[in-house]
């Protein structure tokens, strides 16, 4: 358990859970300091749970009290039993105070002999549970490879017979422990890593935290600071029952920092991350069931967004105008005797749950929506926001604005007021239309010409880009009837190449 300095041989084993980072490392208190006080207490208490405490026991009073005098000088005297330590944290939970005292107690008191890698991983994942938007995530799709050459010569009937066995076999079945083992087998020759699997407490996701280091030794002689280096940590989130997974992307500023620091290409965290990312489909593959990665052109900060747009649920392939179907806002259950055009969409969406205060809140609802999306207005460079004066007050709807509202509703569906909100924080659009050219006439020939023509790129950022565009359409800044469908979030992407108003797949290569 203690760091042995005597035997040091390069191995391919993963970094042990019990590898301790000295408590005196300044970045440790910084890492723990990101957590709030209740989160810290929860974390410490979960460290002391029976199933965890064996892997990182707290520092207890040694049975021979020879060096007792030494202990007295420290601010946190060592406890004698485990129960005592637990008692102390329960007491801390019951009274008020700052979080600094808890960090100090953890680092200088109960875990003065070091924080293990697993504890650090638990702290990081706890932070992620509290702040789901703290990282930027990229969604990747796992596509089953049809590399079997014989399948091409099979007759159609065979294809149907095989396929009809199991239409849901497109998802790799993940058994967490064996997945980590095979992932380890993939990347172990290249990098050394520490793996931590954990189930998210708030979302239907399983997180895999991988800490990578470029040393072949079991007890690396790096500075202890490196263990808290955020660029060496990859998070992979596996949503339940769908062929997607999400990986955390590195922020560019950190990466450039570490680039200048390390210098060598092989130790660049970015390279290490790429190695890990490429190893994932290989680790998921089995004989006769090979997977490959496919980018899905979606990156967002909010995990909920990714779950909505690339998740197991209904909304994965019906967004924008089609979100009324995802939310089932159009029609009710076949047992509902009310004609569906007499029922409010919100009522359909809520289903049979509480229908309190549903009746006369048309105005209330729109007001709420206004307030919600006021902060979400994107940075639209073309038009100043002053043009919003054209909007009528909500109370008196002119026929014009009523028509506009209907048009907005038909284009955006339930975006912005959906039961599963999916705010995009960034939307990159590249327009490939040649100015003045008729795009429909010769789509194939001017593909080459598009390389020469000036391309227009639009970037929207904000807390909810699509919601903001909807708001602009409601105010009359954007014409809801003529606007192309990528503005309604129908394609559910954050990066798109657009020609003639429709999205192109240029990543096919």
């Amino acid at each position, binding site marked *: 358990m203690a760091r042995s300095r005597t035997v040091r041989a390069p191995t391919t084993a993963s970094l042990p859970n019990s590898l301790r980072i000295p408590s005196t490392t300044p970045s440790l208190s910084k890492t723990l300091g990101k957590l709030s006080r209740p989160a810290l207490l929860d974390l410490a*208490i979960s460290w002391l749970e*029976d*199933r965890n405490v064996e892997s990182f026991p707290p520092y207890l009073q040694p049975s021979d009290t020879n060096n007792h005098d030494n202990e007295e000088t420290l601010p946190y005297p060592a406890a004698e039993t485990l129960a005592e330590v*637990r008692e102390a944290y329960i007491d801390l939970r019951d009274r*008020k105070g700052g979080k600094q005292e808890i960090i100090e107690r953890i680092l200088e008191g109960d875990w003065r002999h070091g924080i293990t890698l697993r504890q650090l991983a638990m702290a990081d994942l706890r932070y992620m549970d509290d702040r789901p938007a703290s990282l930027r995530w990229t969604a990747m*799709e796992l*596509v089953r*490879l*049809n590399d079997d050459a014989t*399948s091409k010569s*099979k*007759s*159609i009937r065979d*294809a149907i017979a095989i*396929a*009809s066995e199991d*239409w*849901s076999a*497109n*998802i790799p079945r993940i058994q967490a422990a064996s997945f980590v083992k095979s992932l380890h087998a993939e990347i172990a020759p290249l990098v050394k890593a520490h793996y931590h699997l954990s189930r998210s407490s708030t979302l239907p996701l399983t997180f895999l935290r991988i800490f990578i280091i470029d040393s072949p030794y079991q007890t690396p002689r790096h500075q202890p600071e490196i263990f808290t280096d955020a660029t060496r940590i990859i998070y992979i989130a596996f949503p*339940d*029952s*769908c062929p997607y997974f999400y990986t955390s992307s590195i922020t560019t500023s950190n990466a450039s920092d570490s680039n200048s620091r390390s210098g060598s290409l092989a130790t660049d965290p970015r390279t290490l991350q790429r190695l890990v990312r490429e190893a994932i489909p290989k680790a998921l593959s089995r004989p006769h069931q090979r997977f490959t990665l*496919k980018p*899905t052109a979606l990156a967002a900060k909010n995990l909920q967004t990714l779950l909505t747009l*690339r998740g*197991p*649920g209904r909304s*994965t*392939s*019906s967004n924008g*105008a*089609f979100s009324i*179907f995802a939310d089932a806002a159009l*029609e009710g*259950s*076949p*047992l*509902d*005797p*009310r004609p569906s055009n007499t029922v409010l969409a919100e009522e359909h969406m809520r*289903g049979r749950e*509480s229908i*309190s205060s*549903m*009746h006369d809140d048309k105005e209330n609802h729109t007001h709420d929506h206004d307030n919600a999306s006021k902060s979400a207005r994107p940075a639209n460079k073309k038009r100043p926001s002053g043009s919003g004066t054209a909007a009528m007050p909500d109370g008196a709807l002119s026929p014009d604005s009523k028509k506009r509202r209907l048009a907005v509703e038909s*284009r955006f569906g339930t975006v912005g007021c959906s039961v599963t909100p999916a705010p995009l924080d960034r939307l990159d659009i590249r327009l490939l239309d040649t100015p003045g050219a008729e795009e429909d006439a010769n*789509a194939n020939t001017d593909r080459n010409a598009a390389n020469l023509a000036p391309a227009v790129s639009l970037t929207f950022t904000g807390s909810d880009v699509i919601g903001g565009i909807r708001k602009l359409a409601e105010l009359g800044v954007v014409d809801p009837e003529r*606007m*192309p469908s990528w503005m309604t979030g*129908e*394609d*559910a992407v954050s990066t798109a190449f657009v020609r*003639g*108003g*429709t*999205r*192109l*797949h240029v990543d*096919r290569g």
Partner: protein
Amino acid sequence: MNQKAHPFGSPDPQEEELDAEIRSIRAQISTLAHRKRILTTSLLSSPKIKTLLQNQTSTTTTTTLTTLKEDLSPLVTAAGAHTTTNHHRIAFGATAFPFKDPAPNSPDPNLLGIRIDVCARDGRFAKPYYVLLRQERGRRNGQQQQRGNGNGKRLCVHRHTIPAFISVDRLAGVYLPLPSSSSSRHEEDGSGSSGSESESESGPMKPGQARSTRRKQDLRGFVRELRRELVAWHLRSDAVVFLREKLGLIRDSESETDANANEDEEEQPWGEKKSPPRNDLGIIGLEATAVEARYVRMEWEDGRLGRFKLSNAGLVERAVFMNDRGRDKKVEDAVTGGGGEGGVAF
């Protein structure tokens, strides 16, 4: 002192009580209004009222009744149409409707919508599933001449609300094949998830263009398979819920994952104690491993573990049960044998 400040800081208890009362009355009003709407609409669509109204109007034509009829007839017609739709939805489970894509650049704005209704175990209908199909004319590609001998309309999936574990793309690849010429166009328009379809459909189509044009699109087959898959999924998850109910596991689903039991600390979170099983079989856990409820995991009090796979027909296809000495063949045979009646029967 800090703790004492709380009761003083809060508003008047009497006020609070009144607020709560007002809230409950409001809720009551809204539920009653809801009930009234349900009752009026069901009254309008009931066959008795309908025949009564028809009889009344055919025999006597007094002034009051004609005005009544004029008031009522649009309502009655709407209610009648709605009831017929609902009857179709209940009886057939899959209904079609037209839908117009509001996007201005869409080449084929007229979409064919298919709605699939699945009835769950408690007699309620799940949220309807939708598939929206787009007509593919392939007019921008050069190969459209050979379309002349077939029927000109090709359907392809545009949007859908089917859960991701049912591969709509692969289903569509088999039942709604597109000629390979237009498959690239389709991939351009579909969302990111449609990529696998072109791969799976290009497989059997590679040998010759002639074959791909011969393949007919089978919309009925597509809808039938899709609905079968959805129904099987609902049945599987219902079966798991049913078994959990029977085993008395519904309430303690949170604590059953914890493996370490500690006897002397019961209220403490450290050693989460497993609650004793409420059944005499000693089963403390039974749950589906994922949303699709294809695999079910079982756990016994004495540490035995098991996992079995449910087929679409509702049978236990495969089962693995482990005890201290390894595989427990006896239990496995009991679960898989006899058409699955030892394990799960729908």
